[in-house]
């Protein structure tokens, strides 16, 4: 067993991915990732008896966007003591980033599309942090709106503007793309018999019309087939979007999820292009740090929650401090469990009928001694290569107001969506630094000959469970069901929406926060 497994791994790593020798001196860099050594301790148990007992009003487990959003909701309602237990060394969840002498850069989520006008809770937060002025229409701060040029695609030897293939595309395909746009526009405006939009954000605001929900039972690819969208360029684009947002190919993503990506956004804003996004060098860390400073929770980082139980007074959370290597408990009147489903079910011993699967991602930050150029459209914020398994790179210094940029950082995103998630995870965890780096060096060589000589370093982050995968019947048949949670415990995570986007995590945090307020008998005005 162990031999065959090892052989299998070796084949996977070297054969399937084609990781080759770099053929040059090693590139500086390091592999980073979630603290799975500590996370995996939970399975082995054997935690020493607690040496400290803390008490608080509300304890939040998990410091991602949902947990911080819940904390902000509770703080606003006047909750005094909010404790937040975070496994990693900093809060942020998927919205984390790093920095070096050249630039700040993201390690995960790095932008927020302009929210729909109906998403008042999110707009209000953005107003609090001076991202938007709310008048008759929202007016966004230019410095955070993604600057020109936003997107370029390397196709047939040259960079074109935008990600929808145009260069070298024949008339039948153009017509098909135009028809696709019309279908999408129709879905964008379409409402179900319940009067709600087919596709909305937060997802729970979407229509329950069976005609809409039926889209969740087939894959995006099947939907393309059924609707006669056959051109390779359009299919590449749609597949790209599914991989980009869900880490899942269009062979596997549900059509409802796939269409949601295109048809759920209806921002009507002052001056800016409503399809634009908000972005920062460090990615959504910018938003997370502002959420955290508004919520001001009492944060314990590097702590694992290994058990929780309902008590007479509320909830007791059992924690293990991975730094000091000792256990402690936190007693609270209520608990917000802002962790992914696979952790939540373990903590609550809740055997859900259907487990979510999670897409692993590899993110690489490449520090360059000079910026990438290229034939055609100049360096943009998002730079994508047609028919590449990588999702392209984002230029970390794109929003800079400087005239001259020499050293810079580009962030490559790679969902290993061509493999089943478990295999993909194994491949990623077993690859060496130079093997991982070689993937990105090869991609750089392909579109930027010579730029590989300007690489100063490549750091790689492996996300074992980056996001839940919205395969068919996950969003509507599964996540809509009520979870069995202990008394006084409320779940907050984008997993409850079924797609991993900032807006959903933010919303789920507010919903859980308000459920906890209700449980405590605290009067409040609902935001959601």
């Amino acid at each position: 067993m162990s031999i065959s497994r090892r052989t299998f791994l070796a084949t996977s790593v070297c054969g399937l991915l084609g990781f080759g020798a770099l053929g040059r001196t090693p590139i500086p860099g390091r592999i980073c990732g979630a603290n799975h050594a500590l996370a995996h301790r939970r399975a082995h148990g054997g935690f020493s008896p607690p040496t400290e007992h803390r008490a608080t009003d509300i304890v939040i487990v998990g410091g991602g966007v949902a947990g911080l959003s819940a904390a902000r909701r509770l703080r606003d309602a006047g909750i005094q003591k909010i404790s937040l237990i975070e496994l990693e060394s900093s809060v942020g969840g998927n919205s984390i980033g790093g920095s070096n002498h050249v630039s700040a850069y993201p390690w995960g989520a790095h932008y927020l599309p302009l929210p729909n006008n109906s998403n008042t809770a999110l707009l209000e937060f953005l107003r609090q942090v001076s991202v938007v002025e709310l008048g008759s229409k929202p007016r966004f701060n230019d410095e955070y709106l993604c600057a020109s040029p936003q997107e370029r695609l390397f196709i047939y030897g040259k960079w074109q503007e935008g990600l929808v293939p145009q260069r070298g595309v024949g008339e039948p395909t153009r017509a098909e793309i135009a028809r696709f746009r019309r279908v999408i526009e129709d879905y964008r405006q379409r409402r179900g018999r319940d009067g709600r939009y087919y596709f909305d954000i937060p997802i729970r605001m979407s229509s329950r019309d069976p005609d809409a929900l039926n889209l969740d039972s087939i894959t995006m690819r099947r939907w393309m087939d059924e609707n006669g969208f056959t051109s390779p360029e359009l299919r590449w684009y749609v597949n790209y979007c599914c991989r980009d947002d869900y880490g899942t190919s269009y062979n596997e993503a549900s059509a409802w999820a796939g269409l949601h990506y295109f048809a759920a956004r209806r921002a009507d804003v002052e001056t800016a292009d409503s399809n634009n996004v908000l972005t920062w060098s460090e990615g959504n860390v910018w938003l997370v740090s502002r959420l955290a400073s508004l919520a001001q929770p009492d944060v314990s980082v590097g702590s694992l929650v290994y058990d929780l139980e309902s008590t007479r007074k509320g909830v007791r959370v059992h924690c293990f401090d991975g730094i000091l290597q000792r256990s402690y408990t936190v007693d609270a009147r209520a608990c917000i469990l802002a962790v992914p489903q696979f952790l939540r079910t373990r903590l609550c011993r809740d055997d859900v009928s259907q487990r979510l699967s999670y897409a692993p991602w590899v993110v690489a930050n490449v520090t360059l001694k000079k910026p990438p150029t290229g034939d055609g459209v100049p360096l943009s914020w998002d730079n994508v290569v047609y028919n590449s398994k990588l999702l392209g790179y984002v230029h970390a210094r794109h929003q800079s107001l400087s005239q001259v940029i020499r050293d810079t950082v580009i962030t490559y995103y790679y969902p290993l969506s061509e493999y089943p998630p478990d295999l993909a995870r194994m491949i990623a965890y077993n690859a060496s630094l130079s093997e991982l780096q070689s993937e990105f060096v090869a991609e750089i060589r392909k579109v930027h000959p010579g730029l590989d000589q300007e690489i100063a370093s490549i750091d790689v982050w492996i996300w074992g469970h980056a996001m839940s995968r919205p395969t068919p019947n996950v969003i509507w048949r599964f996540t809509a069901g009520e979870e069995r949670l202990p008394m006084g415990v409320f779940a907050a995570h984008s997993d409850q929406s079924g797609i991993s986007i900032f807006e959903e995590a933010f919303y789920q945090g507010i919903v859980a926060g308000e459920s906890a307020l209700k449980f405590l008998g605290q009067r409040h005005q609902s935001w959601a």
Partner: protein
Amino acid sequence: MDNIGKRGELSFLLSVFVIATCGLIYELIAGTLASYLLGDSVLQFSTIIGCYLFSMGIGSYLSRFVEKGLIDVFIRVEILVGVVGGVSAGLLFLIFEHVESFRVVLYLFVTIIGILVGIEIPLLLRILRDTFEFKDLVSKVFTFDYIGALFASILFPLILVPHLGLVRSALLFGMLNVGVALWLISVLGTSARKGHKTTACIALVALAILFALSPQLITTAEATGYHGSLIFSKQSKYQKISLVRSGGQIRLFLNGNLQFSTRDEYRYHELLTHPALYSVPSRSRVLVLGGGDGLALREILKHEDTREVVLVDLDREMTDLFRTASLLKQVNDNSLASTKVTVVNEDAFQWIKGYSGKPFDVIIIDFPDPSNYSLGKLYSLTFYRSLKKLMNESTVVGVQSTSPFFARESYWCIVGTMRAAGFETLPYHMYVPSFGEWGFVLAGHRAPKPVIYREQSFLTQEVFDAATRFPKDMAEIDAPVNRLDDQVLVRLFTEEWSHYLN
């Protein structure tokens, strides 16, 4: 008396030919350099030749003090001429931007080379005195001397300047000079001192290395692109700075784009600066963004009530060049060295964002045209809004804003963007021969109303009043606002100019 033998005779005569060629080449190089860098070629060539010939006279006079070891001295001089002449052009180019009085150094070089060459022929005559009859000797030496001169004068303009450039030509002839010395040493065998051979070899190798390494500072290929002689070219950290002389004018190119011509830049800079300066009650504090050539600064400093000017230009090498090079100091009236001026070498947008000092009375903006997304940021709504914290109630901003004729929509896009930022604007334009029709905008919290109460070389109240009227083919048209997140200006500008450039 030195004994040179039969073979030595011929060697010496051939060396006369080489020496003559080299001597004239150095002289021509110096003359060309002087007219490139200082202009007025008739004056430069005439004074350089005069100085050179006079120095040769000094050399001839000094030769009488050489009593013994004529051949040794001759070889030594030969090596020295090779080295000094060889490096002359390169050194002069290099120091051009650093030395206060370029002229002094130039004539010093000419004098030294002249003296050394001047020593050579009399020494040679004396060396060969016993070998030939006097009439033969004089006839032979001077025949070779004049043939060499003819050879040089043909070689220089037809072969050397077009193919090698000045720096490499000088080095090549330096090597020939030293080569002649080496040849003589080997032909004369023991009669020459051993030490000379080593010295000559070292000099030859050093010149050869310099030859291989020296960039072709001046090549015809480059120069013809600019329709003139490239007199200075440097890749700074940010841009390629090129100075070109053609006829009586000097033109500055940044990355190949014309910035000014000394023939008519006063028109442009008067239009850029004075309307803004004459729109405000007080002009004590002035800010210049861009304009590292110091020409706008020169106009500003004409206002005696201006006490303080801050100039923000990204490129330190640019401002250093225009502060130290004597030729360029003449052009900008040494404005960058004025005690009233503070030069800040920073990114303008970033500098503004970080600025927390007192506001300015006048702001002059002289950025390159918005030809790419980086430059386009300096013409964006966000940029113009950020100016407000540098302004008081009466501050007026003057902006160069490309051509309303060649890029009509671009021009009105800039005007419209400034209005969208909340400014009252006064657009105006004028013909600048080097550029064609050129556009500017005044902006302020209130509508600027300049009164040009002191006439300039070009700008008067009448001229300005005419400049504010736009004929139909440049008249205002609807144009979008240039935003950071939607840089329409870069697209417009590229599109509109492409009609004229292709």
